């Protein structure tokens, strides 16, 4: 496969100069890619593999504070029992929400049900994100004092479910880093700057918990998919998290929310508090 010795850049340049027919360039590119993947040329020294920490193109470590600009009436205060506004619960989920007994949670020592992974980031809280090691991001919350491990090199799933479950993380370029315009188009059309990776995290092995403090349930069969990203704007750094909760037991379909956090310079406002079972509000008049 001699084509594998052609650099991708050379192929692009030839194509742009019309030195190769466009179709041929595309075919060569694909073949070169496959050849390169199949068998490296002799004498080729691949670079040492990067650890997930080294490969990170987005740094989400640091202290972050939730900006509760959405769903305020359901996040900053505990809504009345049975209030499932905005959540696509099925009849079973609605029934469970209606039957929520906060005292039962206290009695059974399950005050952390509202702090499980599928509900945690919707709470008013601060996060502290650090690298526990080169393969694991640690997310700590001050509210509920929870610890989530996002594992890039996960071992076997734990036998026992937990509030924060088993999270498998991977850097992801949100739908591709390559654009056919590199060959066929005008370079001006191409994105500027480095391709930014997002962080995709899939979590399961969750202990049953609540999507909201007022006992709207998710089950042990829940799978949580999250996409973390960072934005620098208006003189601040923001962390955004798109969360997709799939629960065949209590939800009609995916429950999709997005949450935003603002970077704080340090942990001066970090305020660890244990899990609490909140008292629901009285039924809201007019509802």
């Amino acid at each position, binding site marked *: 496969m001699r084509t594998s010795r052609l650099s991708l850049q050379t192929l692009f340049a030839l194509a742009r100069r019309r030195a190769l027919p466009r179709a041929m360039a595309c075919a060569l590119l694909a073949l070169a890619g496959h050849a390169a993947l199949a068998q490296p040329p002799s004498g080729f020294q691949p670079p040492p593999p990067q650890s997930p920490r080294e490969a990170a193109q987005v740094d989400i470590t640091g202290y972050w504070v939730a900006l509760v600009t959405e769903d*305020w009436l359901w996040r900053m205060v505990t809504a009345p029992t049975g209030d499932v506004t905005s959540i696509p619960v099925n009849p079973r989920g609605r029934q469970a929400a209606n039957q929520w007994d906060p005292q039962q949670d206290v009695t059974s020592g399950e005050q952390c049900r509202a702090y499980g992974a599928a509900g945690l980031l919707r709470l008013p809280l601060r996060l502290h994100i650090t690298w526990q090691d080169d393969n694991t991001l640690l997310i700590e919350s001050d509210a509920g004092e929870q610890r989530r491990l996002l594992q890039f090199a996960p071992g076997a799933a734990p036998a026992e479910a937990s509030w924060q479950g088993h999270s498998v993380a991977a850097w992801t370029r949100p739908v591709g880093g390559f654009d056919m315009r590199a060959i066929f188009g005008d370079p001006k059309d191409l994105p500027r700057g480095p391709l930014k990776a997002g962080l995709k995290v899939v979590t399961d092995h969750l202990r049953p918990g609540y999507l909201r403090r007022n006992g709207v349930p998710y089950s042990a069969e829940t799978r949580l998919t999250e996409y973390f990203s960072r934005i620098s704007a208006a003189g601040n750094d923001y962390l955004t998290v798109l969360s997709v909760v799939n629960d065949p037991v209590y939800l009609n379909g995916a429950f999709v929310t997005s949450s935003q956090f603002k970077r704080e310079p340090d942990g001066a406002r970090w305020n660890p508090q244990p899990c609490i079972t909140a008292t629901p509000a009285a039924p809201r008049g007019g509802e």
Partner: protein
Amino acid sequence: MKTLTLLPAACLLCSAAFGQLDFSGEWDHPGMFGHEDVTDRGAGPEIGDYMGLPLNAAGLRKAESYSGSWLGVPEHQCTPHPAAYQTWGPNTLVVSKRYHPVQRVVEAITLDGTFGLDRIVWMDGRPHPPATALHSFSGFSTGHWEGDTLVVDTSHLKMGWLRRNGTPTSERAKMTEYYQRFDNYLLVTTIVEDPVYLSEPFVRTTEYEMNVRPVPVLGYPFTRNDGPTFYRCFPGEETTAEKGYVPHFLPGTNFLLDEFADKYDLPRWAMGAGSVTMYPEFSGALTGTARAEAAAPAALAPLAAAEGLQSLQVRDRIWLITGAGANITAQVGDEGVLLVDSGSAANAEAVRAEIRRIAGNKPVRYIINTNWQESHTGGNVLLSDEGQRAAILAHENVGLRLAEADSPASALVMDTYYGDNKTLYFNGEAIEIIKVPNAHTDGDSLVFFRGSDVVVAGGVIDTASFPRIDDEQGGSIGGELAALNRILDITVAETRGQGGTLVIPGHGRLYDEADVAEYRDMVTIVRDRVQSALDSRSSLADLQAGQPVLDYAGVFGAAGSDWTGERFVEAVFEQLANAE
């Protein structure tokens, strides 16, 4: 033949390996309204729900004075969701690319949604328009890529809202959006910075999922899968309120705030706490004894601050020249140049040079003065001197005031009128000079270019200032409001309450009907607040202590201006008191 066989296979491999960087297509909120704040985005939020918004004291005052009946006012009935709210509304999103017709590169990305909320994001590197250009509810947007993220910067927004309960954004707001695709989800992060009504940036994230539904699932206006809808809206007579009535709550009288507090068991002060309501500790503060108040707004310089002499083509033959004192309107055609106002004498040479640049050697044939003040008439002497001296037209009180002031312009012969209007036909269109008695002064005129569909408002509107009600020169609050409503009689919006007839103010940026209506609303509301104080026998000092123009000072009370909000209130107070 082999090449032809390889092409699709190879391209498929490329796509499979790398995907494509493209948001084009149709996107829906999950569950139609999304899974956040469904009641807000569906039926609408409650008056008083200011929680989680970084409103400053001015923003809160504006929000608290809002009445839902405002949407029944004819000029506001077709108001669309402004850009800062559009992604939060119950809309689909259709993303398309627009190619340059010759260069075949992407020159823009269009964002179309339900309710006809069409936005163009220019990707060709063009600059944003000058500060004097027209604003719109969608604003002017440019985009660029930062890695995989489409970043959209939007300026030139009209007064709008963050929620559909009157929580405001001003015309000085800037919006930055970040479009990111994650698998089949599109995340839009919206950041609004508004020095007038916000004490911190407002951040909202909205998610869409790719629309894969095969058929429309709902009819208008929640149409799916059949592309953007044609949204028709005509203002109608929805109420029996008299013309010019502006519904609003006087400060401290909005009982709906108490209802909201009661319903959600919130302390009443919490609704006035502003940005702290966004942060986690506020949850604990709700049951504590500490109180928080929204931040005071900052003093701001004028929006259309002097940028030197500039000209902006408003319509085919109509130009706006700014930076020469009062705004100058130039109508340019085969018969020559007609000016409405002439700027200050000190800028006349520069204005003449600018007219030469715009109109070549076409002579100035007419100058129409909308009032007598030097910033409007100072250039008369020089600019009318084009060999055959240009005719100068104005209401007769302009001539009298110029003579009283011993102005150099008073030496010129003027064609004055004293009736309700005067008309002429020039450069292929009818031009109507309309008297608006005792507004800014006693000699104000509007000038209506019928063919171009442009109204020159003269001193009746200063977009960076409260109206200068010059009592000594015959101005009055009643006349000012009558003049503003007269302008609204003439204007016709093109679509969604905006565009259509354009209005050139005496000072500041280009307006349209929606802008004039906002200005009229402001004057009416301040008038009502002053009248309420008089009705309750409050003193001027007591009235001023209550900051009756707090919510408008950031837009119309530019720092450094000699005509402050306090002076405006004082003028209105004295006039209304004298009228009793």
